[in-house]
């Protein structure tokens, strides 16, 4: 569906995308992850034909992303990162305008999406909050039921309920056979919906894995407060535990993969409180490169 080979983009001396070989299978949801500035947006803009590769090729539906730009666009829904709107148009005017330009929007499709996101389309876009503007962006990307959805940071600005609605929408798109490529800088945003995850760092695709594999490596910061003394030695022996620091009755540690064994060891010592947070992408990447130091 999406295929790049040796895709490279330079801006002057800056290498934004570096020999990228990306494959997104038809009917899959591909989570395109990377820290800010890793080259996700540039890659997406190359795929949309908004920019031209310095070297290498990018294809969608087997068509060249630059030469067959318009042909590809008929079947693509695109949400740019930092989605910008015309402030003087109402939501309804904007969506009607894009409906006319895009063509192929089924009657009622826009209304259905507007209802799903509880969007007020009578208001001028300039008066909308960032989250509501983002909803307009999602509606215009999904409204013509495209075969491929390219969504750059789609959930930014959305509240948790709307994020859930968005995930349902992506699942529905996949169920009708569409392919989805969505970017994010946090794993948590894509792990519920993506089949495959690719991680970009400094313009290079460093990891492509299905989500199960990635989760095995996923690292979490865990802070456990014990009722009694911290079973330090037992915790240290748990597979996947790194960076154990004990202060008083609280143990701070990083655990990779499943937390099953950790809790089995911790429970007998009387767990009073647990705080767990997801590791940043950089830490996940680190987990791939460094040997566990136990």
């Amino acid at each position, binding site marked *: 569906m999406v295929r790049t080979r040796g895709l490279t983009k330079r801006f002057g001396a800056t290498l934004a995308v570096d020999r990228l070989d990306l494959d997104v299978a038809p009917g899959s949801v591909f989570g395109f992850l990377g820290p800010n500035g890793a080259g996700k947006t540039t890659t997406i803009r190359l795929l949309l034909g*908004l*920019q*031209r590769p310095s070297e290498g090729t990018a294809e969608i539906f087997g068509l060249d992303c630059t030469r067959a730009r*318009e042909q590809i*666009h008929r079947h693509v829904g*695109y949400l740019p990162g930092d989605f910008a709107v015309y402030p003087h148009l109402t939501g309804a*005017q904007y969506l009607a305008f894009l409906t*006319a*330009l895009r063509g192929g929007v089924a009657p009622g499709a826009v209304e259905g999406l507007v209802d799903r996101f509880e969007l007020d389309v009578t208001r001028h876009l300039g008066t909308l909050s960032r989250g509501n503007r983002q909803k307009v962006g999602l509606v215009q990307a999904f409204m013509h039921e495209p075969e491929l959805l390219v969504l750059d940071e789609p959930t930014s600005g959305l509240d948790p309920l709307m994020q859930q609605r968005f995930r349902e929408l992506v699942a529905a798109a996949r169920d009708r056979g569409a392919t989805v490529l969505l970017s994010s800088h946090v794993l948590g945003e894509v792990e519920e919906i993506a089949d495959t995850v690719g991680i970009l760092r400094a313009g290079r695709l460093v990891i492509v894995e299905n989500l199960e594999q990635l989760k095995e490596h996923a690292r979490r910061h865990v802070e456990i407060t014990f009722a009694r003394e911290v079973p330090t030695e037992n915790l240290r022996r748990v597979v996947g535990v790194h960076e154990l620091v004990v202060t008083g009755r609280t143990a701070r540690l990083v655990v990779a993969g499943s937390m099953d064994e950790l809790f089995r060891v911790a429970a007998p010592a009387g767990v009073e409180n647990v705080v767990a947070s997801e590791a940043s992408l950089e830490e996940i990447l680190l987990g791939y490169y460094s040997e566990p130091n136990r």
Partner: protein
Amino acid sequence: MKLSSIFAKSLFDQRRSFAGWSLGVGLLVIVMAAMWPSVRDMPGLDTFVQNYPAALRKLFNLETFRTGSGYLNTELFSLMVPALFLVFGIGHGARLLAGEEEDRTLDVLLSTRCSRRRVLLEKAAGLVVVVIGLGLVLTVVTLIMGLVLGMGMTVGEVVRGGLAMAALGIEFGLVALAVGAARGRRAVAIAVATALAIAGYVLYVLGQLIHAVEPWRGISPFVQALDRGPIRPSWSAGPAVMILCGVVALAISIPVFERRDIGS
């Protein structure tokens, strides 16, 4: 208004600005024309005009200052109105595409099935239509004032005057649009189009004053628009040449726009 195309939307986007400019241009014509009867009846006007340097007399068409068309040519159509049409054309031309790229709304537009060529051409059409609209306002108000005050101008003369002004706005508006399409920066589009307009005006003026420059005068759009007065008894090729130059600039920018990286 239904926004069924980029052309329709470009008209919609310019509607407020167009209304304001129409009001301004209309009022200007009314005020300046209203002063004509008192100027016409000024004793010693001919001596006053004869005291001006010959070059200025030619530059501002002072020889015919006492007639209605001569007065309007001097007071309005030689400097003030051309300048207004330039600002209007260049401002809108620069905003239509480069402005949209800077605002980052162009990304979604270019992700539809519309080709970049079509986006550019529809915006150009929107620009041409509003400048012609402003030219129409100018023409109609001038005609009405001419009739009311008995300025003795034919419809053809006034239409030719309005056309010359519109052609000036179209030419430099298209240049600004083209530069904006090629470079993606509104400030660059305004700067290049304005610099070209100033260069054209300097050439027009120097051609009157310096003999050696005179053979080159003809390439100045201001000569094409203003020479011997825009409100004139006969047709000239000037407006056609001006519009053609704008179209050529636009045509050159199409392949550049098609190949360029957007928003980088």
